[in-house]
């Protein structure tokens, strides 16, 4: 029997980032994506200093594109939510109403869906804010920055709660364990730092060696920015950790840190589906879905675009969204 080939997902919709010449010259990259299910929208953080809203089509779509047909790009819409500079990351509170954004202006802003002004805003780091992530119970908001710190904020009041300082390198990514007990941070040094949040204690550092070396500068510490881990996520069942970065994707057992999967290739975005069966990740110019049930790549989506900065599952894992440097968000159907 011939080995099964990866399936090709159907492109349901493409959203084009709105171009506002008064705000940004060029095509703004999408830096982060998160769905807001109750509003049936997908939020995108963009280089043009604003948050963009993609209105999701009905499920199932009323007029799905014919096989092989590329759907016309639908313009996404700017929200009034903005930073003084690039918005690097966003996350949706588990209550589905509040959204945190962080950017190169060193600030975090908390927004409420339907309101134009932020509920709160504050200087969060001494350098760029690279990642924001609400705890699964919503009580804490974590942020990571180029000041090499992880900071914890009260999820309700946005007051500072704690600073976790043991990283020594620029941080790009954060992920909460499913039970909210652990917080993982990854960055330039290619290490996953695992924090026991209640005790504010660093329990493990897992070196997955994803650094960007400066071969010409051995005296300068050997590696430069940007490198290391660019995306980090924990499976919903609590069993796996996935980290992706400059050179490869690594999947590890949460409990032991034992390697489960390694795929070579540059990547930025990585996400588990809600069932923990699928792991979606960007690799060079492709979008791949690893099926842990079969131990194979289940979907191979040739996107033909470097710099897919973020991906996320929607609709209970039936759809996948991807966004990156070409200023477009793709919505893929995984049910075919």
């Amino acid at each position, binding site marked *: 029997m011939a080995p099964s080939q990866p399936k090709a997902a159907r492109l349901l919709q493409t959203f084009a980032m709105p171009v506002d010449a008064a705000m940004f*010259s060029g095509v703004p990259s999408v830096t982060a994506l998160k769905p807001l299910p109750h509003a049936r929208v997908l939020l995108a953080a963009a*280089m043009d200093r604003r948050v963009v809203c993609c209105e999701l089509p009905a499920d199932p779509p009323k007029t799905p594109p014919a096989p092989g047909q590329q759907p016309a790009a639908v313009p996404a819409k700017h929200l009034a939510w903005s930073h003084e500079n690039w918005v690097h990351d966003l996350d949706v509170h588990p209550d589905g109403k509040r959204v945190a954004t962080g950017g*190169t202006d060193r600030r975090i802003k908390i927004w409420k869906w339907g309101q134009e002004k932020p509920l709160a805003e504050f200087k969060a780091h001494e350098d760029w804010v690279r990642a924001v992530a609400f705890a699964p119970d919503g009580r804490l908001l974590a942020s990571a920055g180029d000041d090499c710190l992880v900071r914890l904020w009260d999820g309700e009041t946005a007051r500072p709660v704690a600073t976790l300082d043991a990283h020594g390198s620029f941080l790009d990514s954060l992920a909460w364990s499913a039970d909210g007990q652990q917080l993982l941070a990854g960055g330039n040094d290619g290490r996953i730092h695992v924090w026991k949040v209640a005790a504010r204690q660093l329990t493990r550092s897992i070196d997955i060696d994803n650094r960007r070396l400066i071969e010409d500068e051995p*005296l300068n510490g050997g590696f430069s*920015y940007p490198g290391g881990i660019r995306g980090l996520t924990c499976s919903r069942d609590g069993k796996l950790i996935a980290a992706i970065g400059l050179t490869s994707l690594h999947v590890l057992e949460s409990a032991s840190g034992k390697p489960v999967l390694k795929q070579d290739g540059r990547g930025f975005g990585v996400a588990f589906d809600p069932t923990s069966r699928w792991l979606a990740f960007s690799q060079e110019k492709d979008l791949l879905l690893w099926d842990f049930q079969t131990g194979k790549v289940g979907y191979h989506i040739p996107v033909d675009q470097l710099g897919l900065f973020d991906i996320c599952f929607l609709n209970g894992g039936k759809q996948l969204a991807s966004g990156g440097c070409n200023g477009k968000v793709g919505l893929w159907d995984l049910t075919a």
Partner: protein
Amino acid sequence: VELKPTSNAIVRWPQPGNSISRREFMARSVACGLAATGLGGAAVDVATASPTVRKPAKRVIFVLMSGGPSQLETFDPKPGTPTGGPFGAIPTRIPGVRFCEYLPRLAQMTDHFAVVRSLTGAHPAGDHIRDLQYTLTGHFSNSRFQVTRPSFGSIVAHELGKRDAKLPGYICLSPSWHDAAFQGAGCLGAKYDLMKFPGYGQVSGATARADGVSEAGFHARSTLRDAVSRQFLQGRQARSALRYEESFARARGLMESSRLFDLSREPDKVRQRYGPTRYAADCLTARRLLEAGVPFVLIQCFGTRCDWDWHYEAFSHLSKYMLGVFDHVTTTLMEDLRERGLWDETLLICTGEFGRTPAIGSNEANGYSGRAHYAKNFAMLLGGGSIRGGQVVGTTNKDGTEITARPVTVADLYRTYYPALGINFDKKLRVSGQPIPIQEEGKETISELLA
């Protein structure tokens, strides 16, 4: 050894697959001398005078920011505008002038150097090779002359180098594999060609004694060779024979000068002050070479992630690495030269071959989260010597897409560099009877830059 002199040969640093033995190194150096004999001595005419300065500089450090630094992320920031990128801007000591937020030390030293914000290159879209030629020579065409014109470094070596110097007058510190003829002496002859070293404090194996030859043995061989040579020269005072001897002296001078590249000879606190980077090592080496009498040092920022040609993820790399290194090391070099009394005698130039596009890239061809090449307007820094610091020449519009005042070409800069060094740019180098002007292109000297 068969000697094959060429008029624009560059003595290459040994690279894998391009290694040269000490013997070959000596032979090439001798070839340089022979090549120079074909020039008839590069005699000069003096035509109309270019501007003169009260105290011209005697030497040059030329920092070639290879690949093209972004003017918007260095000396002409436009924060908050559509082209502004993710960085902020900070005040400098010049009222109303702001630099990129990642250049805090330079921002506090603006009294000592000038910035040109309205520089324009030869090719609006930027072309590495052709714009590099323009940047290193001041001209972008050889068409008027049937010879390869000399680079800036070679002309400075010719004009300011001492006749009896034991060291080359033009040393390049660069790990680049790229050797273009326009970087060299061209028709001036190999005596004024660049001598290329890999930088980062590395010394040339070719400048060391061969394995198995003791210092005493080497001295004995040299003494014997000198004796034979003196005998040969008796009654032969021809220029060619003298140049041959000069070449041996220069090659020997280089062999004796490998200590100049050995940065462990610098006190720890000096090395720590510069820092551990390649650019730091090259700036410190350049200072040592200047002190030893080398009139022109070219530092080429090149290598793995050490150049400025960042199309992808440029802003992360710039903010977390390149700009910090450039800011720290360049200001350290300025301070070091000032403390040693060398600043007023040294012309420091920091420039790329072009700048970066105001629009931010969004695809593989044009860069993602980065900017593409752009020579329509870009910025550079110069200071030391007779350069009047504390000023910015030229302005651009609010988005940085157009020059709005005082447009300056690279050739105009050359009409400023030469007078700053006391060199008459109207002077003509006579090569095989043909007068080759030192600087023909360009409309005017940027007179406000000269003290």
